[in-house]
């Protein structure tokens, strides 16, 4: 409780919904990084930009930190409250303000669900392209804050490629209009800077997104392979042949079995790896690409190639892919999902090294991921009931990410750093670069009150962890539990 701040909120915006009792704060104690929890001083649920301005001014005046949250689907812990801070929940700001079919744009409040934008655009033959697996629930404000991806970003881009303009409230209450309804805006590209800034630079109160014409025709293929290497080679050959599929997803045997058991998608159980390939465009164009892709799949030793014969079958295939993580929970309830990106040519090597490390740790690793982007999502299974297992899964996860850095990749392709990957940030970036990130934050938030301690590690923490690293990583990160 922070009585003066609560009094501020009530005095300035009497209609603002404030939650300050433990019982009703419980639902907000974590995001989707569920192992870590904290109760904030209070949660505020603004309904307008004017209320957001007042909330920020009050926090700034009292020096109270603030964490912003949308639907709470983030899986790197970036929206977990701070015990000494306020949690701003933007889910009540969920109006679609305008859809302009002629200009192919939609102007929405930050709490609008990703899929709701596409639903509003559908009558005009348009859609909002980025489609994270949580799209039915996750909200646009969070999508911008995390620069969310999805299964179709190889062809259609990430959130940063599909947003034209945002309104942001800075800590001091200033309203920043960033980007424009034109294709560019004068000055530095602050729009790009805000994407993926994980709530550290300001609060997003409005987003104008770009809408894309629905493709005329879609063809979805499933290809089964006798080995992961064959499947990975097929991925590279398809892209090497000049075809950019709308989606190019891969899953290994463990995932195939889990999906089959859980959802009966009709996946071939004797395969070591599956590719799910979507081609879209004009029917004539898709037919041309289809012939190329089928020839490559056969030459890459595909043991089975199946075409979705209608929309129902295609939806079933995608449901199985997007439900893969739920299916994996049927194998083992405790698992930990990683999110590194690597150069695509390293796929066979990296997957082999993952398997080897898993064997060394005595832990199973499953792989279901965006192969076209080289964005891996290895899933580590462990038993939370066994003492020390969680810490070991965390240690293994850290090693998997470090392999990504070693081959020239990154520790996070689309899930964000949050609290989860702070330690690996110290490996990926040098001190001078991290220092620059802190200076950038200070430009927008000189008091360091917006989501402090997330996304960018403090330099002194890096040197502490660096010391730990030298000693062999034997000391668990006690302050950062995760599932």
């Amino acid at each position, binding site marked *: 409780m922070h009585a003066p701040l609560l009094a501020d909120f009530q005095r300035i915006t009497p209609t603002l919904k404030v939650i300050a009792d433990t019982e009703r704060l419980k639902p907000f104690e974590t995001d989707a990084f569920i192992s870590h929890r904290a109760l904030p001083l209070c949660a505020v649920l603004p309904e307008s930009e004017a209320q957001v301005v007042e909330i920020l001014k009050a926090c700034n005046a009292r020096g109270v930190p603030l964490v912003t949250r949308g639907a709470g689907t983030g899986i790197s812990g970036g929206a977990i409250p701070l015990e000494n801070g306020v949690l701003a929940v933007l889910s009540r700001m969920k109006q679609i303000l305008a859809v302009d079919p002629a200009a192919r744009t939609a102007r929405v409040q930050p709490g609008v669900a990703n899929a709701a934008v596409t639903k509003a655009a559908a009558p*005009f033959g348009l859609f909002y392209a980025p489609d994270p697996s949580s799209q039915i629930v996750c909200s646009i404000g969070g999508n911008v804050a995390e620069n969310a991806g999805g299964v179709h970003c190889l062809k259609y881009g990430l959130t940063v490629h599909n947003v034209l303009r945002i309104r942001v409230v*800075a800590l001091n209450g200033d309203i920043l209009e960033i980007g424009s309804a034109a*294709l560019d805006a004068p000055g530095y590209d602050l729009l790009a800077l805000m994407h993926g800034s994980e709530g550290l630079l300001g609060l997003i109160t409005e987003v104008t997104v770009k809408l894309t014409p629905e493709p005329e025709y879609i063809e979805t293929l499933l290809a089964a392979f006798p080995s992961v290497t064959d499947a990975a080679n097929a991925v*590279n050959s398809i892209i090497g042949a000049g075809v950019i599929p709308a989606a190019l997803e891969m899953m290994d045997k463990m995932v195939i079995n889990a999906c089959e058991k859980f959802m009966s998608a009709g996946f071939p159980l004797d395969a070591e790896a599956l590719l799910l390939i979507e081609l879209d*465009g004009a029917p004539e164009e898709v037919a041309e690409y289809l012939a190329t892709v089928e020839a490559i799949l056969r030459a890459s030793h595909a043991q089975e190639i199946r075409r979705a014969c209608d929309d129902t079958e295609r939806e079933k295939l995608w449901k199985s892919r997007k439900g893969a993580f739920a299916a994996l929970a049927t194998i083992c309830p405790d698992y930990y999902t990683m999110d590194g990106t690597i150069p695509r040519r390293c796929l066979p090597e990296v997957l082999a090294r993952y398997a080897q490390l898993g064997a060394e740790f005595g832990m199973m690793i499953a792989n279901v991921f965006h192969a076209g982007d080289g964005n891996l999502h290895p899933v580590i299974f462990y038993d939370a009931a066994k003492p020390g297992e969680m810490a070991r899964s965390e240690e293994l996860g850290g090693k998997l990410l470090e392999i990504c850095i070693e081959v020239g990749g990154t*520790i996070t392709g689309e899930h964000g750093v949050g609290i989860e990957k702070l330690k690996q940030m110290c490996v990926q970036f040098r001190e001078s670069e991290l220092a620059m990130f802190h200076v950038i934050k200070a430009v927008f938030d000189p008091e360091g009150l917006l989501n402090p301690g997330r996304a960018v590690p403090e330099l002194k923490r890096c040197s502490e962890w660096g010391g730990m690293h030298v000693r062999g990583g034997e000391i668990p990160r006690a302050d950062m539990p995760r599932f």
Partner: protein
Amino acid sequence: MDAIVSSISERIRDAAAAKTPLSIHGGNSKAFYGGAIVGEPLDMRPYSGIIEYEPKELVLTVRAGTTLVEIESVMDRASQMLPFEPPHFADGSTIGGTVAAGLSGPRRPYTGAVRDFVLGTRILSGKGDDLRFGGRVIKNVAGYDVSRLMTGAMGTLGVLLDLSFKVLPKPVAELTLRFEFEEAMAIRQFNEWAGKPLPISATSWFQGVAMLRLSGAAAGVKAARQKLGGELVADEAGPLFWRSVRDQRAAFFQSTAPLLRLSVPPTTMPLALMTPHWIEWGGAVRWLSGAADLSMLREKIASVGGHVTLFRHGDKADGVFNPLQPVLAKIHRELKTAFDPENILNRGRMDNF
């Protein structure tokens, strides 16, 4: 190459200590663009060459001083392209200058801008620090997106060293169609087409003639051509025309009158402009050739949600770039100070904050 980087870094440190500005340049093909040039020239052309290019990865990493001509000839052999179709204002145009100026060509509204394809940068800050941001992979959300922040910053935030891009296969088939449309009709038609799944890759309108380029798989382009009608432009004339638009070689752009770039929402109806104008980017860019009261024009364009750049010629004292809102100008000044505390890198080239 390490020796070149060390020597540039040293020059930056010396310049910072003496507070004397440096003017970063490559081929000098965009020297006309942006605020007036001050300072000692820092020639980036020796820092040149392709660092890594594996076509199957769709990723290219290159040194800033490399010419577009060299990059495109290498990519040609792999049937790939820089998807933002950068302008070549001269043969010596470099990739570093392209990213710094943030300029994209006719393909921009349909495929993306240079900022959309930048994946990573290595820069020297105004303190001479060697910093790397982003990477060489297509998806990366670790750290703030400083690479894209560098794009279009006119070299005011850092000296660009290495640049990584996502690249794309070249379309197998391409053709150009010609239509006779009045201005309002052209704008309406461009927007209507853009709302449909058509393989459009460029649009242009000037003096009653609209041009449309289709790119993609042969079958897709053929099907779209049948749907759209129009008059097919002869094989060689199409690419020539688009190059003249991209590089501003057409007579309209070659005039010595002030050339103004109006960036507006694409559906903005004709602006009742007295001076000759050329429309690009599906209606989102209107080029104006001739004298204009810049502040009045800026007010008018702001009211439709756009902004105005004094692109070439004219009096730079009126401000090359559209003035920023005061709150944004303050952030710009502080970002500039964060990267370049002594204000030595391309001082004044971005003149709106």
